[in-house]
């Protein structure tokens, strides 16, 4: 069972992105208030903001960490048409005393003519590389040839996607059998039937990225896209946030079967497609093993998806955006793993041919989008969340100091391994 607690974020405007470092001990957030904040996890599991600084002259859309081998390095991108690389400086004694760390800008990438909508570091085995995408439909891949010098980045590739880009995701696979690959999503909403997800692969022969695939079935605006951690699988899993949650598997066909161009051909299957968010899906994120997907949507809920041993994906948890459980369900717990629940009901199978049947736990009322649709059968909410958490009334008038609402002491997993 999952339990949520709120953390005083102290951003002055909407938070657009949250990102963990490789170990999950540090976190970065970015916001419309043009700042980035860095958070460190203390021994008792609390998060402390250790740095907060203005990064851009517009809303900051995304923030992302480089692998720690390259140092403590962040990249951010913004509406101000730039992306920037930041490095933490050690040994600033004044800041240290206050428990604050110091971050300096190492470079500003100014090639885009429009808002830079996403930024992602490449998997570390490719080197210190950074991809950005922008509203004018260009994906740019930069490389720092000298990992010691983060102020020098050269623009290695410019991929024109023809459609306004909203999100990118590197394929994390480090297998030698898989070439570097990047998926691009577009939020173009003009009424056309162009594929809104394109996959580009690096070809050793031409030393260029070329389009390997386009997911023709995705024609609605795409808001987020994420390759699952590969974890030794022989295929890739790609989650797409569009008007619904979709999970694709891409199985590389054996090289000898692929055409002469040197690009990998894939056998693409849609493994799952869920419209439980009832509307647009905004974000998707995989856990470390690529076995649980979290999604957020316009219904204001966070949902968890997991495949059973038969490769049937289903919803295993749901929580409202303010951390409170979704009521009106027969389940007391939220995010309650309900594998093999006895009273599963069969809902519409959206893509029967390849994806099989979908089983939903009963907590997925078919009217999940309208939150108050069922007053009659309301159950008392489980006593998990203090109600002050969402009592944000008059927040604007009376900004209160940092406040955290912990509903219950947390059982932390033992992680006192090593240093």
């Amino acid at each position, binding site marked *: 069972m999952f339990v949520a*607690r709120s953390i005083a*974020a102290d951003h002055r405007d909407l938070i657009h992105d949250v990102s963990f470092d490789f170990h*999950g001990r540090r976190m970065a957030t970015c916001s419309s208030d043009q700042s980035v904040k860095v958070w460190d996890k203390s021994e008792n599991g609390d998060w402390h903001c250790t740095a907060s600084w203005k990064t851009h002259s517009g809303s900051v859309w995304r923030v992302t960490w480089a692998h720690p081998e390259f140092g403590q390095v962040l990249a951010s991108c913004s509406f101000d048409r730039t992306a920037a690389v930041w490095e933490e400086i050690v040994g600033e004694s004044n800041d240290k005393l206050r428990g604050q760390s110091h971050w300096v800008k190492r470079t500003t990438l100014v090639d885009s003519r429009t808002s830079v909508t996403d930024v992602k570091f490449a998997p570390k085995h490719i080197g210190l590389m950074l991809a950005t995408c922008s509203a004018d439909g260009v994906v740019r891949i930069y490389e720092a040839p000298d990992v010691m010098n983060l102020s020098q980045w050269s623009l290695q590739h410019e991929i024109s996607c023809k459609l306004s880009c909203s999100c990118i995701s590197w394929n994390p696979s*480090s297998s030698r059998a898989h070439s570097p690959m990047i998926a691009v999503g577009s939020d173009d909403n003009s009424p056309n039937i162009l594929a809104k997800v394109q996959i580009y692969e690096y070809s050793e022969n031409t030393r260029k990225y070329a389009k390997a695939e386009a997911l023709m079935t995705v024609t609605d605006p795409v808001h987020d896209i994420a390759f699952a951690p590969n974890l*030794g699988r022989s295929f890739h899993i790609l989650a797409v946030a569009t008007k619904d949650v979709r999970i694709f598997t891409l199985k590389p066909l054996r090289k000898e079967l692929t055409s002469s161009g040197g690009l990998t051909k894939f056998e693409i299957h849609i493994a799952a497609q869920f419209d439980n968010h009832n*509307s647009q899906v905004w974000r998707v994120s995989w856990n470390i093993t690529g076995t649980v997907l979290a999604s957020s949507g316009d219904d204001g809920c966070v949902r968890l998806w*997991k495949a059973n041993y038969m490769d049937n994906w289903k919803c295993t948890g749901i929580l409202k*955006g303010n951390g409170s459980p979704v009521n009106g369900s027969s389940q007391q717990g939220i995010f309650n793993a309900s594998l093999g629940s006895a009273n599963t009901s069969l809902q519409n199978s959206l893509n029967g041919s390849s994806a099989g049947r979908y089983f939903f736990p009963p907590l997925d009322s078919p009217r999940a989008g309208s939150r108050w649709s069922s007053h009659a059968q309301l159950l008392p909410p489980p006593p998990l969340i203090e109600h002050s958490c969402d009592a944000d009334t008059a927040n604007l008038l009376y900004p209160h100091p940092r406040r955290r609402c912990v509903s219950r002491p*947390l059982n932390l997993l033992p992680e006192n391994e090593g240093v």
Partner: protein
Amino acid sequence: MSGSKPDILWAPHHVDRFVVCDSELSLYHIESAVSSELKAGSLRLSEETTATLLSINSDTPYMKCVAWYPKYDPECLLAVGQANGRVVLTSLGQDHNSKSKDLIGKEFVPKHARQCNTLAWNPLDSNWLAAGLDKHRADFSVLIWDISSKYALETAVATEKVRLSAGDPEAGLVVTKPLYELGQNDACLSLCWLPRDQKLLLAGMHRNLAIFDLRNTSQKIFVNTKAVQGVTVDPYFHDRVASFYEGQVAIWDLRKFEKPVLTLTEQPKPLTKVAWCPTRTGLLATLTRDSNIIRLYDMQHTPTPIGDETEPTIIERSVQPCENYIASFAWHPTSQNRMVVVTPNRTMSDFTVFERISLAWSPVTSLMWACGRHLYECTEEGKASYLEKDIATKMRLRALSRYGLDTEQVWRNHLLAGNEDPQLKSLWYTLHFMKQYTEDMDQKLTGNKGPLVYAGIKSIVKSSLGTTENLRQSRSGSDRQADIIQYLSEERSLALQLCGWIKKGTDLDVEPFLSSLEQEGDWERAAAVALFNLDIRRAMQILNKGASSGKGDLNLNVVAMALSGYTDEKSSLWREMCSTLRLQLNNAYLCAMFAFLTSESGSYDGVLYENNVAVRDRVAFACKFLSDAQLNRFIEKLTNEMKEAGNLEGILLTGLTKDGVDLMESYVDRTGDVQTASYCMLQGSPSDVLKDERVQYWIENYRNLLDAWRFWHKRAEFDIHRSKLDPSSKPLAQEDPSLMKKWILAKTRS
């Protein structure tokens, strides 16, 4: 609000009150009520809130529009615009201080009667109330009244007044002289005061938007447009204004008023309301007729100064607050992103629009998300059963319990893994038996089967071709009639050892195995194994024992009884009954027992393809009773099945060969369990499988996981373990030298 459609207004200062107006005004009090019980007379608005009706005012008929007095006091003063153009001040009778007493009942009457379309209180000079009227010849359509002005006692009006409001005790309170008259020869559909100057009034006129400056009423700024309804100023950017026409919303920048800066996509149905969210920048809500959806336009950044041609990023969203059509909605003045909607039949619901949530998983299975300006961390709590846990959690816990590192009692690794997964149990027992046998061979230094052991039963069986002896025996154990052919060879007995039926050495005694099964209470399996070893008496004895044991199943006695009736006679009634009724047995082993007893010699499909019988038992059975050709075919088929399914029980057949890697590949594809894959492949004696790219890739991925979890000691242990079994493995991945340099630099700097 025309007709019966209700509208809704929040009190500007008393944030727990709102008014619903249709033919009358109803004041509600909203309060949080968490418990599922409703107080008498209150209405449920959401899971957390209820509303109580405080008062109803039906004094003012023909209401066309209502506006709430913007100051804190008097509290419940409202201006009502009527169908005849009059504006009446009324109250919902909460407090009657002197100020409100003077005002309540006051009427403001235009020269010519026509519909009053809109009202707007000046936010600063709250005595000023602007009213927008329909056109009447060349008359003015925008009238600004001063509510504090004394009534004008022009006789003509006074008499008319008496006629119109006969019976009104306060008949003197009629004002007919407006402070300002604007918009001559025109109609006014919507109005709002501009916050940048209290003397500026924006009006949606018949065919244009006009800004009147009260300091100089002879002039106005205007722009021709059809979008003249519902003018409203963005509370966060005072130069940004929205207005609408049919299904289209126009966004204007007052600094460049010539044309809309933006036109939002046309809706199929006409719009009825457009409102900026007062608690959040750049969020505009719109509602169309006959719809249960509120559409939101999220304009995600500050409007840029003039000259910058970039379009704002707009995200379109829609929310569905209730099932019914929505008549109207109103944003809560202070509560973030909250609104109350009302349906035509006056049911209401309290609703909060969530911000776009961004989220991220941490490597240690907690989920962080940001909703609006808030962060939420979600962690897994409580004891989920091992089976329900995600593989990420399982691998973490197993890494902590030193799973995979027991190289002496290899079988114990399945206990370290949580002792819940039968496939893992089978895998580690297989690897244990393989190891035992290899050690045995090493000690004796005889035979050449050593390397063969890790190649699995499939290879062992292949190598046994032609060395098999036959042995005829009766099923009942008596030597009355030899109708069963058993096959024996050195390889087959090796296979039986790997299956766990017999111990090392060549005597084919299954007794130790049977007793261990009895100890575990696995009666059916023990009985089946006894029977397959042609000891029907022992099988019956086991069943009896099972029936009489603590929580034994008495039915086992019945099974024993049925067994005792066994006859070799091919056409006996017993045989007939058993072969039909056995399919109804729930236990696969019992089912297999009767399948065996009723089968023709040499065709044992009922046993071999009983999928619920453990692979190792089926294989052992096949090794005893199938001829070389049959056995090969069966093993081949079963191996492919196991490979396809990624079933770890199949490692018994494939061993740690390329076949085994194939099998493990589909296991990893299915589960993501690189931990088991890595440790399993590292079990064999130095072998080719470790050179397989896939195996190296699993190992790399597992080490990466340990790194991400900061299990440095575990990773070191794993590397030591690996270098022992795979001397070819490179001395541990030293990081890039340049990075080492960097690290050293960083250290010295600090």
